[in-house]
């Protein structure tokens, strides 16, 4: 009889569906109406019992009566409830007529809760779902390694610098950067070919033209050889001396560039400072180059 069952399972002996926590006892039985382990909620300890369960979005009313206690297979009778909320409640009422108040009430409560969460599920599936894509460790590792190697192979700084210099060559920047060094080298070459006594006026004109044009002398070797030639020649024109110092200053800067961080506006000022130097001592810089 149910009282004996309860006195055994409920209090004294072991019930495998019972889960105890600090404050409460829960019942894991799938037919349990409230989920708690109580005398009135235990499906094993009550011979007349009813629950609401849902399967695949439809709700069923399960009922258990004493008459079928001997037939475990037919123990639970199942009634499909109407999709309409009110009609389903009426169905519960008519099926559980003359049943204890507790079971009726709890069944309706449970049914309400279930319909509410079913509505929520349907709403959520309409919204955006988050798709979980599993990461594959081997592939992640492989990609990471390949990325590192690609980074090394890319030599980004060099590539960017090269590209910028290319653009400078192609004159995409227009007149913003004027490096009179072109003019100077071109003038030097011409000077080497001709004699030194050629007039300064000619040279000035060439320099002026050189400023607008962009011409390129070959690599750095030519600069050094130019310096040596410069030292051999005895020049008196101011312009050449000024430009020599400019060039030397620039060469020194570029050699000593190292890894000093650039300060954009500060660096920009350097060319102007070089112009100041032009008026200062010339022979000292000459000896440096020598």
């Amino acid at each position, binding site marked *: 009889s149910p009282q004996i069952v309860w006195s055994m399972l409920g209090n004294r002996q072991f019930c495998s569906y019972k889960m105890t926590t600090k404050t409460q006892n829960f019942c894991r039985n799938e037919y349990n109406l409230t989920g708690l382990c109580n005398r009135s909620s235990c499906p094993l300890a009550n011979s007349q019992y009813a629950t609401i369960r849902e399967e695949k979005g439809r709700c069923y009313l399960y009922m258990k009566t004493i008459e079928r206690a001997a037939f475990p297979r037919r123990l639970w009778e199942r009634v499909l409830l109407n999709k309409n909320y009110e009609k389903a409640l009426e169905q519960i009422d008519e099926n559980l007529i003359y049943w204890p108040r507790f079971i009726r009430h709890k069944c309706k409560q449970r049914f309400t809760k279930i319909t509410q969460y079913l509505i929520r599920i349907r709403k959520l599936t309409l919204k955006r779902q988050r798709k979980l894509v599993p990461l594959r460790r081997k592939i992640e590792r492989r*990609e990471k390694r*390949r990325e590192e190697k690609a980074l090394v192979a890319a030599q*980004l700084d060099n*590539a960017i610098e090269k590209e910028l210099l290319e653009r400078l060559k192609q004159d995409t920047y227009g007149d913003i*950067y004027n*490096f009179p060094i072109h003019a100077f080298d071109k003038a030097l070459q011409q000077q080497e070919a001709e004699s030194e006594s050629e007039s300064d006026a000619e040279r000035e004109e060439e320099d002026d033209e050189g400023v607008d044009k962009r011409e390129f002398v070959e690599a*750095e070797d030519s600069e050094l050889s130019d310096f040596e030639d410069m030292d051999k020649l005895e020049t008196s024109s101011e312009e050449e001396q000024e430009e020599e110092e400019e060039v030397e200053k620039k060469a020194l*800067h570029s050699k000593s560039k190292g890894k000093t961080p650039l300060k954009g506006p500060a660096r920009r000022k350097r060319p102007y400072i070089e112009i100041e130097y032009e008026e200062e001592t010339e022979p000292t810089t000459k000896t440096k180059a020598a």
Partner: protein
Amino acid sequence: GPPAPERVLFPPTFSVSEIKNKQRRHFMFLRWKQQQRKEKLAAKKKRRKEREALGDKAPPKAVPKTIENQRVYDETTVDPNDEEVAFDEATDEFAPYFNRQTVPKILITTSDRPRGRTVRFCEQLATVIPNSHVYYRRGLALKRIIPQCIARDFTDLIVINEDRKIPNGLVLSHLPDGPTAHFRMSSVRLRKEIKRKGKEPTAHAPEVILNNFTTRLGHSVGRMFASLFPHDPQFIGRQVATFHNQRDYIFFRFHRYIFKSEKKVGIQELGPRFTLKLRSLQKGTFDSKFGEYEWIHKRREMDTSRRKFHL
């Protein structure tokens, strides 16, 4: 064990792997390795001496094989003089940008509930790309915000996907019905994590450098990136944004440059940096179910050869 003698004599059919004892086998293997190294060094020295002896008549140095050298030739590589490609590009979705009919206006957003790192990254990205706005997602569906964006005249949409508090994906969508590219983002470095960085990027329009986009696919992706930035860069700002493609990884960097002379330029990194890997390219705007995919990265087919790249 005993030190290795100068010349080790073995019976001709001996191999190190036949020794059953692991310690001894290991020892013999090390000895064999040392010997190999010695021989290699001797061979190198000999070759160098020969080369010096020959002087000018020496044969030219062999070019080392690199992955880029050995790259499997892709038949969709774009030839710069190809007319068909030029014609396609004149009539594709980016034509209005390249004809200067539209000004890029970018919307940057994230996936749901972005965490601190992603938020900061979005902000920095917004400073790097001029005329861009950051809006938070708040659970809105992309399909619904796209028509709104088009109505408000946005040209591009960037969605940064986040996973475990770090950004790991980027969806770049050109808005009036343009292609959508989905990238995997890795090695994201915020501005404060970059060493030796400069001051903040200014609002000047940066220049754009696109390196190594050779195939048709690469070309279209490159144009997508180019269309993010205003067509006329402001050279006063001296800023440059670089998208460098190497072995299918696109490295993004943002620098400030200065020309120290006409042969030397110095660059200083500002701005965030990240790397992208293309996952898929879709023809229309973002639509994961019914979209028409132009290219999807299929691992089994495309990752078989180490020397085959698609961008």
